[in-house]
């Protein structure tokens, strides 16, 4: 067979695979959750220091972890939580941190809620954050049958 023929025969298959893979990737992107390692450990570490310095005096961890966090945020896009903390917090001076600082704090909040770290940092980009859904471990558990 001539190479051209091979290409001619294979093309629909390749196209099909590419289309299928693209669709899967898009689906995966739209369904990416906070259980998929969306922040990095160094980012959460920075966020931990910021949290201690800027947030802890007003918050006990119990008010935004575990059941309290799940009730408030499970199922919401991550952009919503980012918008909430970056426009309302700290209460005394909302909006006073830089976007890079708010996103670090958000990474630490995810870590506080047992969501895994991954290789890449979470960016302060509402488009990216809007495509990530908040999912807590408790909500991710399969139903008991």
């Amino acid at each position, binding site marked *: 067979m001539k190479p051209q023929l091979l290409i001619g025969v294979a093309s629909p298959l390749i196209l099909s695979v590419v289309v299928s893979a693209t669709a899967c990737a898009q689906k995966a992107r739209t369904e990416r959750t906070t259980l998929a390692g969306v922040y990095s450990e160094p980012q959460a570490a920075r966020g*931990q*220091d*910021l*949290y*201690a*310095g*800027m947030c*802890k*005096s*007003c*918050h*006990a961890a*119990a*008010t935004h972890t575990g059941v*309290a966090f799940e*009730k*408030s*945020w*499970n199922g*919401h896009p991550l952009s*919503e*939580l980012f*918008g*909430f903390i*970056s*426009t*309302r917090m*700290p*209460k*005394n*001076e*909302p*909006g*006073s*941190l*830089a*976007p*890079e*600082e708010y996103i670090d704090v958000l990474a630490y909040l995810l870590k506080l809620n047992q969501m895994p770290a991954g290789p890449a940092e979470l960016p302060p980009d509402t488009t990216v954050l809007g495509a990530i859904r908040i999912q807590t471990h408790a909500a991710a558990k399969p139903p008991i049958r």
Partner: protein
Amino acid sequence: MRQLSLNRRAIGIAACVLATIAAGVLVRARLSSAAEGAALVRGNAPGEWRFWGADAWSTRYSPLTQIDASNFANLQVAWQWNASQFGEDEYYRTTPLYANGRLFTVASTRRVAAAIDPGTGKTLWHWGLDEGLRWQKAPRQFAGRGLAYWSDGPNERVIVVTPGYHLASIDAKTGTPDPRFGKNGVVDLMNGLGYPLVPWAVDDSGPLIISDAAPPRKARTGEKWDSVRKIGADGTIGIDPAIGQIANSSPAIVVNDVIIVGNSAVHGYFPIRTHNMPGAIRGFDVHTGRQLWKFNLIPQPGEFGAETWTKGSKVGSDGVGKNDAWAPYSADPELGLVYIPVGMPLMDEYGGHRPGANLFGTSLVALDVKTGKRRWHYQFVHHDIWDYDTPMAPNLLDVTVNGQRRKIVAQTTKQGWVYALDRLTGEPVWPIVETPVLQSEVPGEQTWPTQPIPSRPEPYSQQGLVESDLIDYTPAIKDSALKLAKRCRMGPYFIPASLADGTGASGYRCSWYAPGASGGVNIDGGTAADPETGRIYVGSQSGLSTIQVQKDPCSEFRYSSPHDSCGLIGALPAPAGYVAQSGSARGNGFEGRAAGSQIGGVSILKPKPLGGVTAYDMNSGDKIWWVPNGISTPVATNDALFAGVTLPPQPGRGQAQIITTKTLVIYGTGRSGGPPRPPFHLYAVDKATGKDVGQVQIPAKTTAVPMTFMHQGRQYIVFATGAGANTALVALTLPHGAEGSGGARRR
């Protein structure tokens, strides 16, 4: 741990005192050449830093000259002292002291006191106290802003107020408590306030939750400590928690052998209960710890000012609580007066439960050091509903006004004004005019009809929001900014909060809030004063946000800043039909306090020379110069509204942390100033002109006001950095051989 539990069951706070950790002397540092034999100036030895604000006048001024414009950029890190060795903290907000060859500080949530060799950064001694539940439920569980120092020559003491509200007198040389002071060196500050002390218990193992949720309670008869669940009664004794909570965050001040101690309280953000403990100022004998006097910051029935609480001021009444003087204090030892900056009453944004002007809330009070009697007071905000606590030690100055030599006190405030008062009488130096202000539409709120507005100096922060404040680079931009601005209630200053549901008469769902609850000036920043020139240098921020109130379904308050206390220990049961909101709908539908002031990421406020560092001449009341905190930030946007418009930079954010020397104003950007990522810097400007003279890279942002001193021929600058488990003191000095001949000059 077992031993701790045994102690908890068996003994209680009085015995906890006996469990003090005294590490003892390791080294006796050499005396400072700068201080030996030198007379005190404003309570401080030249070249030393014996008070939180350098001296009793809280000038934050040092006459040292070794570090100057020619060499500032050459400063190097001499040492770093790991404060986290004693445990975690919030942000490290301490300004150390230097006296007689030693550096003194506090560290960690336990507020461990320590002495440090200023030349090497080695710990000389440390001291701490096991406070049981008093620490666990302390409303201010952090290292605090510092400590106090006292000496009569041969004897030296470090005075510490602990998170659990004990007063300790520690031998500055050895780190051991003074056995002649109180009980084994410690006075229980919960004694002497006039409230019963009872055994405490807890129903959870966590801290107090802002503001007064998850509190301790009075122990039941025979109740024991459950060491597994960490609940129950551990033997701790304290004021009956039903009365409220009490705390401390700033050091005492020692004046003429009297230790003056106040308190902080629960935060006023989201209280559940409509009453709590009022603030009080007390004097204690520095030698014995004996309480000499008490001054009530909420005057009780029959006392001066009680009539300013028209529904009554008795402890336990609705709306009665706080008025806590939580900032550091200043004093004039020669006049025998201490100046107390007082915070606001309970709660921050709603005062419907406490009609009246609410003395001594948001005031400056001058007390006689010997007797505790009020000499005068000045109230900056009547019936405060803006969280405008007086947040900083006032600055004392001798200046010449209209040809007359005057002793004044300058109070910088959250509300963006400097209030200049005669420090003998409290009379304004320049007219301060009672001016009609906007009135609240919130049911039950009785806004005070006027507020005092200084005629000079001009403010250092944005005041409210009026049309002329808005960006107007093009007609379309001006229209858009005005449209956005009109979504919330506008006004020149003191704009009351609006109802979040828009049911007020005007229909507004928010009000503009500038300065906000963090100022203006707040405890992170504040003011340095130059006793040579009568100038002050104010570190402040300037921004814009919004404020609104609604009902917290599980709080006793009729209104508060949007919050949901339901489910917290100590909260009211959820009302019938209660449904918890989730996501950004929590609280209300307004899409954000900060974002509401921006279009495409651009603030609707014109950039102005506000915030940053502002210099005033207090002889004339004139503004002299202004610089941003660190660097101005370039502004860029993709919003089509701004196409073709060159946007001016925004002044730096955060609150500059300032000291001044013979020639320089030196400042760090503070935890919320400067860039979000390294490198971070300490800055210096010419104090006469504000001209940049240098910056030096530092390991982390300053988190408290720096201090400076001369030790063994070298001038050091020391400041706190970090938060959580990464807290440290950083010492800068010039390289060996580059010290020059500068030293302390008496002034």
